[in-house]
């Protein structure tokens, strides 16, 4: 089977612009394509959140510029409620699927797996290329839905039927929702392609000496997230197919009999809206970890590198990733405590849900132990990783409230939930992306990013995230429901008028701070200081490539062998404060023997 392993011996045919930058087979280019696409989506998603925030801070205020920007979505300068909901739905969809899922696992899975396990490319580069372009197709379809007459999908990113299935219920449930379902279907195919590659590459393509137990934590996390994706996404595919049939061919899988919508009695018969919720959340909760795990993996690796310490309890860290992944499949019901599901089921889900707090706590304590007595280097990547730990603690702890069913009765679908998942999934995963980009930028583009701008970017973002989302806990506790177009209808929600304005201003500033990142990112690509091969004195294999920016095939000569575990910093034996995995000190001669 030795020949199978040599897939990486890439034929060096002539590279054209198209084969190098467009339909590239090179995992590194594909990773970058994912990254840039996700960044574009992130900007769109952020712009949508700005529109929502402006509406929430200044409800019913006529802003003619809004009509200039949004056209028919804001006739007369007022964002109509149905389009507010459309913006909200698209914000959620874009951020969850196109930014956090594709942006994390797509970018770093592709870029890092072969480099960190010592392979020349993915197992099947062609499928890898297809994976990106199907993702691109999904993006295009989703983008198209902004231009259909009735507007994009507006039933929330969870698309609960009947609201999502019946066009008369809300305008977005017309053509927009159909395109949404198609786009997600294509996205699932793309994710399947990606997962196949990640899993098989990790299993089969590791270089000599790279056991599973010596893989950097990022690879572990992405590997596990890929398995999650592989098992969770197909369930959503089934659901999406059924919903599409319900929507466009009048079947009634999810739609019960006797619905009376828009002055008309509909002819559906017998389906169950709850079934969709089960199917969706069976996918939806693992999805949270598909997003979160790679970020946690990156965070672990970055913290170890810049604390100059081995990751504390490597085995426990891997075990906790596995535990979280396993538990994530049996907790979906906690999204449905008050959905009319049998309350006995609720009890089971409480147990499994809150148990996730245990492996999560292990992760946090291990990170803290890694920082303890380290020699911390505050690069932007490190700052974002520390920030991630903070956000993960904050968001994780609020999960204990929401996971305990009696409290969830009060907090379900309030701003408390919004705060919770924006901390633990949204912002934490975003910080994972940033930490990853700052850390691996030298390997991606052969140049360094600007340190000062990076730090400024971190501090504005970190403080901004807290200012935006922390107050939402207060609103949620008071019972301010989420997905509200305005808080003008109830006295007790009106007391948060000032707070909403405050959050909006914080969101605008935090969003604007991302411009610093964009300037730094694109500027450094061309103007950054030339990077060395291993600028951070890190230990994993990607830093052993001949150039700071390796070409297709990754290593010019032979792929280095691995002699030790990852994150070997400040070992008592080593001369320097790091020992690379490929360093054969003490193992001289072993390579030739084989």
């Amino acid at each position: 089977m030795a020949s199978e392993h040599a897939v990486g011996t890439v034929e060096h045919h002539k590279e054209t612009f198209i084969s190098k930058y467009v339909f590239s087979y090179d995992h590194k280019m594909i990773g970058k394509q994912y990254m840039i696409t996700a960044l574009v989506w992130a900007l769109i998603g952020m712009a949508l959140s700005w529109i929502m925030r402006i509406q929430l801070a200044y409800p019913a205020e006529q802003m003619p510029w809004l009509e200039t920007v949004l056209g028919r979505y804001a006739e007369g300068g007022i964002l109509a409620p149905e389009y507010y909901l459309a913006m909200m739905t698209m914000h959620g969809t874009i951020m969850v699927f196109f930014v956090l899922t594709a942006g994390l696992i797509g970018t770093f899975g592709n870029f890092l797996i072969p480099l960190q396990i010592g392979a020349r490319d993915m197992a099947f580069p062609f499928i890898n290329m297809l994976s990106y372009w199907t993702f691109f197709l999904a993006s295009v379809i989703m983008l198209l839905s902004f231009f259909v007459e009735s507007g994009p999908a507006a039933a929330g990113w969870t698309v609960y039927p009947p609201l999502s299935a019946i066009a008369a219920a809300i305008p977005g449930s017309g053509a927009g929702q159909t395109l949404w379902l198609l786009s997600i279907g294509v996205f699932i195919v793309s994710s399947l392609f990606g997962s196949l590659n990640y899993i098989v590459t990790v299993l089969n393509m590791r270089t000599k000496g790279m056991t599973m137990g010596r893989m950097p934590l990022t690879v572990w996390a992405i590997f596990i997230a890929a398995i999650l994706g592989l098992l969770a996404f197909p369930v959503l595919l089934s659901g999406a197919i059924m919903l599409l049939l319900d929507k466009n061919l009048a079947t009634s899988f999810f739609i019960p009999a006797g619905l009376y919508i828009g002055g008309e009695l509909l002819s559906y018969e017998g389906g169950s809206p709850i079934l969709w919720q089960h199917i969706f959340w069976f996918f939806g909760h693992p999805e949270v970890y598909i997003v979160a795990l790679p970020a946690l993996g990156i965070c672990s690796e970055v913290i170890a590198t810049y604390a100059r310490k081995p990751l504390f309890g490597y085995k426990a860290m891997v075990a906790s990733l596995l535990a979280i992944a396993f538990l994530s499949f049996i907790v979906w019901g906690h999204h449905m405590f008050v959905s009319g599901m049998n309350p006995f089921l609720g009890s089971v889900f409480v147990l499994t849900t809150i148990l996730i707090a245990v492996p999560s706590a292990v992760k946090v304590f291990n990170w803290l132990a890694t920082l303890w007595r380290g020699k911390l280097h505050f690069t932007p990547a490190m700052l974002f990783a520390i920030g991630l730990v903070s956000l993960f603690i904050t968001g994780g702890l609020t999960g204990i409230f929401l996971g305990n069913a009696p409290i969830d009765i009060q907090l379900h679908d309030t701003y408390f939930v919004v705060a919770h998942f924006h901390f633990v999934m949204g912002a934490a995963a975003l910080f994972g992306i940033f930490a990853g980009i700052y850390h691996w930028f030298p390997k991606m583009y052969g140049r360094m990013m600007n340190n000062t701008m990076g730090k400024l970017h971190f501090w504005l973002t970190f403080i901004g995230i807290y200012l935006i989302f922390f107050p939402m806990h207060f609103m949620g506790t008071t019972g301010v429901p989420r997905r509200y177009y305005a808080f003008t209808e109830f006295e007790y929600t009106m007391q948060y008028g000032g707070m909403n304005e405050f959050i909006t201003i914080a969101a605008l500033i935090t969003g604007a701070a991302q411009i610093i990142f964009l300037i730094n990112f694109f500027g450094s690509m061309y103007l950054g200081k030339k990077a060395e091969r291993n600028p951070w004195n890190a230990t994993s294999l990607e830093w052993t490539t001949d150039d700071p920016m390796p070409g297709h095939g990754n290593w010019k000569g032979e792929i280095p062998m691995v002699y030790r575990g990852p994150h070997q910093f400040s070992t008592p034996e080593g001369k320097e404060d790091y020992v690379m995995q490929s360093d054969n000190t003490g193992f001289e001669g072993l390579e030739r023997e084989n």
Partner: protein
Amino acid sequence: MKTRYLVPMILLAAFLFAACGNGEEDRRADRRPAEAVEIDPATAATAVTTVHFEGTAPDPQRISMAADRSCQELHTEPVYDRVVIVNEDGTLANVFVYVKEGLEGKSFPVPGEGAVLDQVGCMYTPRVFGLQVGQELIMRNSDATLHNVHASPTANREFNIGQPVQGMENTRTFNQEEVMIPFKCDVHPWMSAYAGVLPHPYFGVTGEDNGTVVLDNLPPGEYVIAAWHEEYGEQTQRITLGESERQELTFTFRSDPA
């Protein structure tokens, strides 16, 4: 090495196809103009239609606006759901009278001025009205509460517009003839209105002061005149109008179909 691009090319083609397919939808709105009709005022005929009511009108239902206190505050006196309004002279109000047949293949200029559907005191004003194909319908919210105008046509495209702010206006047009299109406000279940969309200007609604609609400036010819009421349905009569002729028609709606 060409084949390696085959699959991505197919994907790209699929995308372009999808993109073009989308454009198709918008082009459907263009309609070929039919021959415009010149009406000679010297020969134009007139049909005067009066709608009578026989029997006893049902008791008006009282609307409880307690459901939305911002609506309730707008009314000091009880509000009634006035589906059947019988005038003092025995005529019936809110009947939509129009030329149903006899003008096929002719086209008429579309008025530049839009028809207005206002929402005042959490009621639609007017309750029954007509407009021409292609004429703008201006929907206005004069209340300081959320209304949404949810039209459920069958031939035209359905729409549902939220109007959260006082004084907000939205416009839409209908591309197909349709009598009647129901309008509903999902926020206030008691609100409803009906619009008749016709390709010509020969229509009117009986008022609460008199139950007569004058359809004038009609080219001489044979017509079917129809009268529609939301509770009692539609009645039709066939008439022939000579040059400059003025004919009077009477429709009678009965409370119980005896």
